[in-house]
């Protein structure tokens, strides 16, 4: 009878299932135990800073854009600024993630109701919501990362006394990276690509290109850049989002196939696809962006020539510190080489590959940019 077979199978299946559940549960428990024990020491370190002065009634808050707090990009870096402030001053921090643009307003409202002493919002998506909240709550302090307010109707730049706009002259740092890359390439070809064609991405590429061109004109080189041309911004190479690592991998494989040996991905986690591609190819190197790649993605450290650092964490940390010490001032802050809001990371594994000449020239260049003797813009 087929039915008996089915019933027998079902009973056997139920028995098996119980065993599987039990086994699964034990594995899970062990896993959790292992994770939890690893966590323990880090937690103990966190309490030290608080002993000197008690700032535990100071609450610094953040609203992320739709990328979430673990986006390996600006949301995460901004949050690191809060975490650093928590460790340093013993303040309390709180972060709210947004699933889509509808969430921005209620998240900011929720933080206002929780009496946050400063509210950090991240990215241009939050621009409108931040402006509205700042206007409605003049006694609350805000800081917005990567955004400069502009009144479209009046056609003029605006600012609020209670909002600090944290922007970055990323091209200054990218300029240095472009110079180093041009001075290090063996094939004479550099490559870059972005996530989406927006100003905060292309500013990296502009600077990178300008740095390379500066190298060419100083040293009579003919290094070229694939994937971006400031003169033709619509023709740039973009993967279309800040998520899909496969795209990053494909684009990088194409670039490597065209004899490019140094690639700068400006696409957050998409760049990890580049790292995988370069690792598989066994040749070439990368310029990481936003953070020191050797810190944020250690496992690929041996691939990173250097990183163009946009120190959003430092800027956020400073904004929190100012709010804490009643020194907060609204308006525009621009991170530059001079105030170390931007910079390039150490060469790490490439310390011996980059020639001493280049190293000294980059140091000189840094000073020249700060002094205004070299401009990083086009021309």
């Amino acid at each position: 009878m087929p039915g008996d077979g089915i019933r027998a199978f079902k009973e056997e299946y139920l028995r098996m299932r119980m065993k599987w559940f039990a086994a699964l549960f034990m594995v899970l428990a062990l896993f959790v135990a292992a994770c939890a024990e690893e966590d323990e020491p880090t937690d103990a370190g966190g309490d030290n800073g608080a002993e000197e002065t008690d700032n535990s009634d100071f609450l610094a808050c953040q609203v992320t854009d739709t990328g979430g707090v673990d986006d390996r990009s600006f949301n995460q870096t901004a949050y690191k600024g809060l975490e650093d402030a928590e460790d340093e001053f013993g303040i309390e921090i709180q972060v709210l993630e947004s699933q889509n643009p509808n969430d921005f307003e209620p998240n900011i409202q929720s933080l206002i109701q929780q009496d946050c002493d400063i509210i950090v919002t991240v990215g241009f998506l939050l621009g409108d919501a931040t402006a509205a909240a700042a206007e409605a709550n003049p006694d609350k302090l805000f800081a917005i990362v990567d955004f400069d307010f502009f009144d479209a109707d009046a056609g003029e730049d605006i600012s609020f006394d209670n909002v600090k706009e944290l922007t970055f002259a990323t091209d200054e740092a990218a300029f240095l990276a472009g110079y180093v890359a041009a001075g290090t390439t063996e094939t004479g070809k550099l490559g870059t690509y972005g996530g989406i064609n927006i100003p905060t991405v292309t500013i990296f590429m502009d600077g990178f290109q300008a740095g390379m061109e500066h190298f060419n004109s100083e040293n009579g080189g003919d290094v070229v850049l694939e994937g971006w041309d400031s003169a033709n911004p619509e023709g740039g190479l973009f993967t279309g989002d800040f998520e899909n690592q496969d795209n990053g991998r494909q684009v990088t494989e194409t670039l490597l196939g065209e004899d490019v040996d140094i690639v700068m991905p400006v696409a957050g986690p998409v760049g990890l696809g580049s790292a995988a591609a370069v690792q598989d190819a066994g040749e070439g190197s990368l310029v990481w962006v936003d953070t020191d790649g050797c810190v944020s993605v250690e496992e690929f450290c041996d691939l990173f020539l250097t990183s163009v650092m946009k120190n959003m964490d430092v800027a956020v940390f400073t904004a929190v510190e100012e709010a804490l010490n009643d020194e907060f001032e609204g308006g525009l802050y621009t991170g530059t080489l001079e105030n170390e809001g931007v910079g390039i990371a150490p060469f790490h594994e490439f310390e011996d590959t980059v020639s001493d000449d280049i190293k000294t020239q980059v140091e000189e260049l840094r000073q020249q940019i700060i002094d205004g003797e070299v401009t990083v813009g086009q021309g």
Partner: protein
Amino acid sequence: MKTETPPAEPQEIEPPRPRSRSIAVEALLIPLLALFSALVVGGIVMIFTDPEVARAWASVGRNPGNAISMSWDLVSSAYGALFEGAFGNPTALSETLLASTPLILAGLSVALAFRAGLFNIGAEGQIIGGMLTSSWVAFTLDLPLVIHLPIALIAGFLGGAFWGSIAGFLKARTGAHEVITTIMLNFIALNLLTFFLKTPIYQRPGRTDPLSKEVAESARLPSFGDYRVNWGIVLALLTAFVVWYLLFRTTIGFRFRAVGANPKAAAYAGMSVAGTYILAMALAGGLSGLAGTANLLGVVYSMSPGFLGYGFDAIALALLGRTHPLGVVLAALLFGALRAGALQMQGTAGVGTDIIVVIQALIIMFVAAPALVREIYRIRARSAIETDAITKSWAS
């Protein structure tokens, strides 16, 4: 293919239960049990992903009471906040209705297409299609509210309808499967949006970010008092009624259902299958377009790049609501409540919104596998009805 058990099978030996449940009760029971199961599993996930509680469990041998009480505190505070944020006060209710509005409309879109035997994965693209047209109307024209708002809404419907009908046309003319074409059209729409946001037609003057102009005051859906909830929810509920009427009280709806049930028989009966596909996809697209438009004109007032995510939830909602407009409305209210509650949960209980995505996914999983829920709660299968809506579209 239906798998009906032959009467001679030994499983049927047990006598049927004396108490018989109506189909409506059954239709509610499984989703409710699915919700309950999902909350339980979600609670377990919460416990094991919270570092402190997980640590308490790691040393459970030493202090079992501590681990249990910490877990209870975590889960009860999280779900307490979830409930509070969804229903606890007028603001919470407003947020729930607000979040439900686009979900209802997008869910109806997928449900309507389902009825015509089409699996519309393209709600997300149709939402963008609708927003592109409605926003243009909303920020370009200068008209009084009573004219401007309806025109903007109609424009949104038409934009979505156009985008949806492309897939319908391809299906009707070439037989291209709508699952493939609608998915692809999503990405085409996304990239079109990104492109348009950089053109002077849409981009906000003076800005280099891909952010659209703000829609005019006269094209905004008025909100109720100081709350964020607006006339969009009324629009959505009315639309649900219209869709119900269309599907079950008109010949067009009958044609949709006939083609959905068996295209060959429908064709034999003299119905135009190709025409039905195009019309169904156009209407479905229009509903999605309206979803995007209601959100645009009611909440955010400007467009930014990226999917809103409603189109993907919509597929789940159509399944959860058994492709019935009323079911979709209830399912959308549930998801809206989860979304609204999630923000509160994140804010006061410190549990990330991701857990809500887990819970939503679990609900879908339990609903899509009713046999699993029956097995857990020892409910006997009543009939094959409930699996129909879900399985049929795959078999086509």
